[in-house]
């Protein structure tokens, strides 16, 4: 992990090790750091390791990326290929593409490193997204972790763009098509778009500058920012201590689990090797981005199935479902068919990234939260998250509409139309359905608490009636199921005070109260059983 405790590992218990530690302590304050962190407690849950998957795949991406830079030439100078890959011999191509072919076919293990790099990148962004959704659905983003959520979100955002840049570098037919799309998108920006495009490409598309420029951004600028954010993210995880699911003995004021040294050192350290091992094995077995099949980029050539990597797929979907609107006024052109998707793209992401601030404003909750919510207990938030995922998914489908059309024998036009309608309808439907399901699960929890667990054992009573035996829940389960809060919505109070004088309530305050009502008001929670209700049923009176 990231604390400098390595020098004090058990194997270093010998006086020599201690002397080294003393030396470091005198200069770094090592013992102070270690005292706070060496036996730091981390709770155990598989979903808490999604962030680790992201972290480790990022490290793998960096390790393999450094290796690739040793062989890759980020140059758009045209060369004639004379390497080992016969179907391209004698073809004109950029040096970037030729060097990527060289890595794939002439450098021993180069192909493996390329594939590990690419698979790890695909897993990296996927793991970040799943990690973010885990944090979202369990409410782990609440105070004090809003900023850390934002850091993580920025990492996801930058990771997507860095992935896109990396996909562009080999200058194959697919990646060039992606860069061409980017040119069109930049051109669609009103007023400054044409200038931005000329500055980006050093002139007209494609020019000779964009790949060296993307290279610097891909290997230096964005990873540098990401490394900084990552360190901040990890420091805050340590500082805040990890959240935990509610359960016996687990309180908002403590953290229950096992210590960093040795258990998490072994588990988290071992998990790095597991992640790396799995990705290496995948890279041995499954091809990714076979650039030699695509051929070198030429602006007059294209292959069908031209898609970006999956994390840009949803922007591809946005652009594919957009109708071809274009406004020509006063000698200027506004290409809404590209510009609207370009604007909606960050909005869709930004919504989920800024949600913590929205929720804390709506609920007015200023307390620290270290116990996680069960998603069913926050039906509105869970519904919003599910709706967002459904929007994301329908855009992914739209982004791959040609593949879905050919593989499932559908009409590409029909898929596009279904996606267009689904873009607006599906999130609403999913929101309502998810909220219903969450309320249903709350109701089931209530039944379980009051009536116990169904055992499946049927008993016949003396008077002949058959009943199923319900076993009362153990106290630990009762506590776990009832420990959550059921917040009340904010009230704005009466608009007219007792003297009949109108009280000024701002429009924003009213909106906030309305939203709060939607979040915690009617139809958002099933009242959890009170101890009195429970006692009454258990003592055998009433409630049949």
């Amino acid at each position, binding site marked *: 992990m990231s604390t400098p405790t390595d020098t004090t590992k058990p194997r270093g218990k010998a006086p020599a090790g201690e002397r080294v530690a003393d030396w470091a302590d005198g200069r770094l304050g090592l013992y102070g750091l270690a005292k706070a962190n060496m036996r730091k407690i981390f709770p155990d849950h598989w979903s808490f390791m999604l962030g680790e998957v992201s972290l480790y795949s990022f490290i793998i991406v960096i390790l393999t990326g450094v290796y690739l830079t040793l062989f890759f030439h980020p140059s758009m100078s045209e060369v004639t290929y004379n390497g080992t890959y016969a179907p391209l011999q004698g073809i004109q191509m950029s040096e970037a593409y030729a060097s990527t072919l060289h890595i794939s076919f002439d450098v021993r293990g180069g192909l493996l490193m390329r594939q590990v790099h690419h698979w790890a990148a695909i897993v990296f962004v996927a793991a970040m997204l799943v990690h973010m959704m885990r944090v979202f659905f369990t409410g782990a983003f609440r105070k004090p972790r809003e900023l850390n959520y934002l850091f993580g979100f920025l990492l996801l955002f930058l990771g997507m763009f860095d992935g896109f840049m990396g996909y562009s570098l080999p200058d194959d037919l697919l990646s060039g098509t992606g860069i061409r*799309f980017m040119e069109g998108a930049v051109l669609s920006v009103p007023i400054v778009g044409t200038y931005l495009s*000329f500055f980006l490409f050093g002139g007209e598309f494609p020019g000779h500058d964009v790949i060296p420029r993307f290279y610097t951004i891909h290997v230096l600028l964005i990873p540098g920012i990401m490394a900084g954010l990552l360190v901040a993210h990890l420091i805050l995880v340590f500082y805040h201590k990890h959240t935990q699911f509610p359960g016996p003995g687990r309180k908002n004021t403590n953290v229950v689990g096992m210590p960093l040294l040795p258990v998490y050192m*072994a588990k988290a350290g071992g998990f790095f090797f597991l992640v790396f091992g799995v990705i290496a094995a995948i890279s*041995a077995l499954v091809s990714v981005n076979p650039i030699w099949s695509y051929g070198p980029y030429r602006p007059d050539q294209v292959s069908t199935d031209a898609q970006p990597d999956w994390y840009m797929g949803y922007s591809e979907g946005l652009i594919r479902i957009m109708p071809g609107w274009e406004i020509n006024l006063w000698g200027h052109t506004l290409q809404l068919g590209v510009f609207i998707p370009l604007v909606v793209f960050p909005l869709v992401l930004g919504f989920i990234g800024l949600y913590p601030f929205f929720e804390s404003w709506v609920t007015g909750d200023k307390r620290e939260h270290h116990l996680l919510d069960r998603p069913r207990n926050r039906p509105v938030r869970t519904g919003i998250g599910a709706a967002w995922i459904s929007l994301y998914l329908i855009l992914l489908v739209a982004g791959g509409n040609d593949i879905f059309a050919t593989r499932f024998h559908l009409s590409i036009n029909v898929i596009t139309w279904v996606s267009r309608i689904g873009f607006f309808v599906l999130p609403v439907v999913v929101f309502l359905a998810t909220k219903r399901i969450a309320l249903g699960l709350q109701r089931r929890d209530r039944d379980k608490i009051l009536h116990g667990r169904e055992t499946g054992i049927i008993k016949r009573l003396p008077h002949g009636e058959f009943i199923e035996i319900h076993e009362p829940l153990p106290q630990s389960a009762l506590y776990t199921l009832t420990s959550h809060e059921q917040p009340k919505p904010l009230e704005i109070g009466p608009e007219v005070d007792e003297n009949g004088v109108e009280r000024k309530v701002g429009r924003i305050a009213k909106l906030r109260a309305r939203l709060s009502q939607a979040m915690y008001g009617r139809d958002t929670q099933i009242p959890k059983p009170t101890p009195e209700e429970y006692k009454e049923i258990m003592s055998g009176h009433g409630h049949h």
Partner: protein
Amino acid sequence: MSESTLPSEREAHGGELAENPFADPGLPPHEPRRQDIDEKAAKSSERTVALLFTVSMLATIAFIASYVIFPVGKVVFIWPIGHISALNFALGMTLGVALFAIGAGAVHWARTLMSDVETAAERHPIEADPETKAQVLADFAQGAQESQLGRRKLIRNTMFGALALVPLSGVMLLRDLGPLPEDKLRHTLWSKGMLIINQNTNQPLRPEDVAVGSLTFAVPDGLEETQSDYQEQIAKAALMIVRLAPEDIKDKRERDWAHQGIVAFSKICTHVGCPISLYEQQTHHVLCPCHQSTFDLSDGARVIFGPAGHALPQLRISVNNQGYLEALGDFEEPVGPSFWERG
């Protein structure tokens, strides 16, 4: 659901009902694992871990051996994948096993041999206590006052001015990232009298070469692949030549600009510039593989589906006195994606 628990069981449980049945029972007592109480089980775990670490060592040796043994171009058949690179497969699998075995060993060690006693650590509020906060605010106030920043407005304002201006140097330096657009996006290589070269044969096209229902891609005469601006030029000048039966052409201008039903349209999509070229010869529709903009080549290449905003530009063509197809000028509107100044 009717009464759910049996009276007898209810009684048994009823005695345990505390003051608050939902109270936190606290952390459950630690349960030992088999390895905690049975040295034989612990020994077995130890052997498993050691075995995994040994497997890793062997796999690393195998990795090095594979690197040396397999030539880079060797292909093997691996069921059920098929024919793949031997080196990639061998290196990836050995590396994967070497890494996975280390991880599996460490985790198995942690899970079975290291203590699994769960303990609780207290959290401390993130917010500072009031004294600290007061101290910090006082320190800040003192510092701010000693700086005299609030009092000496002239210093403050000029400093803000200087700090606001200095990044402009950086912005200025970006100016030479590229030339100004000027009218570069408005012109292509096509000009009056330029021959239309078939990209497949590199020969100028004659009308009789182009059959109804055929599709030919063409470039301006003189554009060479070795030219340093080849990519920029072909990105604008690429042409799609099809021949329609003249009576199938619905658009009058399209018919006028054609030669005996031979029409020349820009191959560059007006959406974001993909080379649009999925020509359906029966419907006369041409589809873009990138975002499915669909144009009707029999009707002025107008957009009939998808995100493109306007029709594909048409190149006016004719035949010169040697019987070759030629352009009658440049495109009359900019080709490719729309931009603000396009108008």
